[in-house]
Structures are given as structure tokens and as C-alpha cells.
């Protein structure tokens, strides 16, 4: 039987771990609330752009922007949005699994794949797995800024313009609620026009300088804002997942301490009993 002192040390170290996981849980909870607010703050921009874009695209059906044109897929660009840090449960792994699955599907259709990785965890994963990585950005922090993403997005958009890729897919985590985050794949390019908005109204905007540059700018901004939204949402997912993971870690530590405490009590009792019986035995012998 292990000595009481060792068990006491063990309990102490688990208690320290528990303190850390508890702190991380609370930090994640407060950061999650802020991240959720930021997530909501990004919505009006994207909604408005979608609205204007839909109108412009419909009013000028004769101008076909390459982003709206479906073409034969020879190469696929995939943007993977992951976290920078770990200890957030299965969040990243679930996303990577889904990504690999998507990649396999496209490979089976004879398409090549190139990757744009956002977040350090994706980089670590695809470095081990292999894959053609063309752009990468990491260390975005809890408050990601659109400026940090422009470069990576631009790489993918340029490749699309040059015809190097024929489809752009975004892999992201969807924030369902605090307990559940769902990995999902979204096709960014080509943009499929939603057929639900019929051209009911017969007015058109006055454009300055002209339709084409306005539509170009809109489309680029739209893609950027969708990716930015995904990144912000991913932060909210990360915090929620970390909160849940750390909560269960804290609970587990509690269970472990409880069990060890029982072991410790038994060991202590055994030692005392032994001592007493030794004294009694000694006294009897005298």
C-alpha cells in the first residue's frame, strides 16, 4: 500500500490542476459572451451586402461576373477556419475530419485540392497530413480583425480569377448553442443566386461610377465578410467548446480527488491501527 504522504501529494497536485481548469472555464465563459456579441455585430453588414448584391445582379443580368459563373471543377480551393490554441475539446478535430472527408469526395471526382489555413491548429494538422497549402494566417487572437484576413482571402480570389481553382469552399464551425458546435462546408464561389427573390420592383439604382466596379467591389467585400464572420463565429465556438471541456475536466478532477481522499483515509486508518496493535502487542509482551 502506498504511503499516506504520497497520496496527500497526489491530491494536492490534482487540486492545483483543478484550480487551473476552473479558471480556464470561467475565462472561456466570459470571453464567449463577448465573442457572441461580436458575432451578432457582423450580421448587418453581410445582410446589407447580400441585399444590394442580389438587386444589382438581378437588375443587370446581362453582365456575368466570373464569381457568378459555374464552371467545370478541376481544382478546388478549401479555406479551413480553425483555432489558434488547443484545450477546446473535439472542436478542431471534428472540423478536420469533415475537411478530409470533403477533400476525399472531391479527389474521387478527379479534382485537385489546395488549402488556405486560418489558425495555427489547422497548420499543425495539415503539416502532418500533407496537402498543398497556398496561404496561411494564424495568431489572430480573441478579437480577430478583418485586415489580418485580407491577404489570405486575396490569394484564393486571385487563384479563382486566374482559373487555377474553379470552386472555393469554406470549412467552418457553426455555433448552434453553447453545448453544440457543428462543422460545416459552405461553397463560397461560384455564388449561386438564390431564386427566391423575384424581380418584383422595377426600379434600379443610379450607379457611381458604374455597375461593373460596384459589383466587383461588392462581391469581393461579400466573400471577405463571409470569411470574417466564419472566423468570429469560430472564436465563439472555441470559447464555448473550451468552457464545456474545462467544466468536465474540473468535474473529473473532483471525482479523482474524492476517490483519492478515500484511499488516503484508509491508508491513514491502517497506519494508526497498525501502530496501536504494535503498542498493545509490545505492552502484552512485557
Amino acid at each position, binding site marked *: *500500500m502506498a504511503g499516506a504522504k504520497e497520496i496527500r501529494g497526489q491530491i494536492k497536485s490534482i487540486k492545483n490542476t483543478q484550480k487551473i481548469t476552473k479558471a480556464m472555464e470561467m475565462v472561456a465563459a466570459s470571453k464567449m459572451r463577448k465573442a457572441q456579441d461580436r458575432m451578432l455585430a457582423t450580421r448587418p453588414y453581410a445582410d446589407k451586402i447580400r441585399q444590394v448584391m442580389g438587386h444589382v445582379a438581378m437588375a443587370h443580368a446581362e453582365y456575368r461576373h466570373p464569381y457568378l459563373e459555374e464552371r467545370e471543377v478541376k481544382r478546388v480551393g478549401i479555406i479551413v477556419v480553425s483555432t489558434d490554441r488547443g484545450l477546446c475539446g473535439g472542436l478542431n478535430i471534428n472540423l478536420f475530419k469533415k475537411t478530409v472527408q470533403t477533400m476525399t469526395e472531391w479527389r474521387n471526382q478527379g479534382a485537385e485540392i489546395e488549402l488556405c489555413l486560418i489558425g495555427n491548429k489547422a497548420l499543425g494538422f495539415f503539416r502532418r497530413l500533407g496537402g498543398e497549402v497556398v*496561404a496561411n494566417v494564424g495568431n489572430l487572437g480573441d478579437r480577430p480583425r478583418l485586415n489580418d484576413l485580407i*491577404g489570405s482571402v*486575396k*490569394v484564393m480570389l486571385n487563384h479563382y480569377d486566374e482559373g487555377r481553382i474553379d470552386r472555393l469552399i469554406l470549412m467552418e464551425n457553426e455555433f448552434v448553442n453553447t453545448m453544440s458546435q457543428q462543422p460545416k462546408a459552405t461553397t463560397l464561389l461560384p455564388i449561386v443566386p438564390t431564386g427566391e427573390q423575384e424581380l418584383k420592383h422595377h426600379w434600379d439604382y*443610379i450607379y*457611381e461610377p458604374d455597375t461593373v466596379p*460596384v459589383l466587383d467591389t461588392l462581391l469581393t467585400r461579400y466573400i471577405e465578410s463571409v470569411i470574417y464572420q466564419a472566423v468570429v463565429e469560430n472564436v465563439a465556438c472555441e470559447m464555448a467548446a473550451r468552457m464545456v471541456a474545462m467544466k468536465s475536466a474540473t468535474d473529473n478532477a473532483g471525482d479523482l480527488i474524492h476517490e483519492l481522499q478515500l484511499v488516503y483515509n484508509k491508508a491513514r486508518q491502517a497506519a494508526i491501527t497498525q501502530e496501536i496493535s504494535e503498542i498493545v502487542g509490545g505492552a502484552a509482551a512485557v
Partner: protein
Amino acid sequence: MAMTFHVDIVSAEESIYSGTAHMLVAPAEQGEVGILPRHSQFVALLKPGEIRVKVSESGEEHHIFISGGLLEVQPHVVTVLADTAIRAKDLDEAEALEAKQRAEDALANRRSDFDYAKAQSELIEAAARLRMIQKLRKSTNQ
């Protein structure tokens, strides 16, 4: 009756301003434009500059600096989609090159990402702890 319209100034990251106004002046690419209530539908690209929102008849104004973006006007609602930074084609290209470079560096250089030695030692320690706990449990159950 004084005529007003609603103004929303939003960027991809946050909502910057929202409220009613009597007049709005924005720096469009081909010169400043002033918007009054019941302006016809209008879309313009904006260049970096200042947006002035006149909020009362006495001439009280809000000044908001934007680094470019897009202006959308409906008769009673004006929306400014502001960029978060000054954008220019060559600047974007420079950023793109940087992102590519980062990807290449990160793939070529294994050390920078992860301290394998440290992680391994932590793993060994954790495994040892686990074994000890299991041993303890077994010995007490006997």
C-alpha cells in the same frame, strides 16, 4: 414638418452609427455627394474621407471618418458599408504575397510551430501519473 431619414453606418466588424438625420454628406469616388430625404435609389463607391451626418435642424453634425466603402441610398434609408482599413489594389497584393510566404515558411520550418520535446515530456509525466493512480486504486481494492 421636418423630413428625416434613417442612417446606418456599418463595417464588417461592427455597427458604427445608427440614427436619424436631416442630411448626409459622403466622399464618393467622383466627388462629394450630399443626400437629402427622398433621394432616389443610389449606389456609390466611397473613397477614404469623412462622412458628415446632420442630425438636427440647428446644424448639429456627427463626423465619422471612414477608409472607403460603399454607399447605398433608398428614399428613407441610407446605409454606408464602411471598409475597416484603407484598401488599394497593390496593398492587397502585398498582403496576399505575405500570406503565401507565411504558408511556405510554416511548412518548411517545423520548429516554429510546436515544441515536440516539451510536449513529449509532459505526456510522459501525465502517463506516469495515470499509472500511479491506477496502481493506487488496485492496491486499495484488494
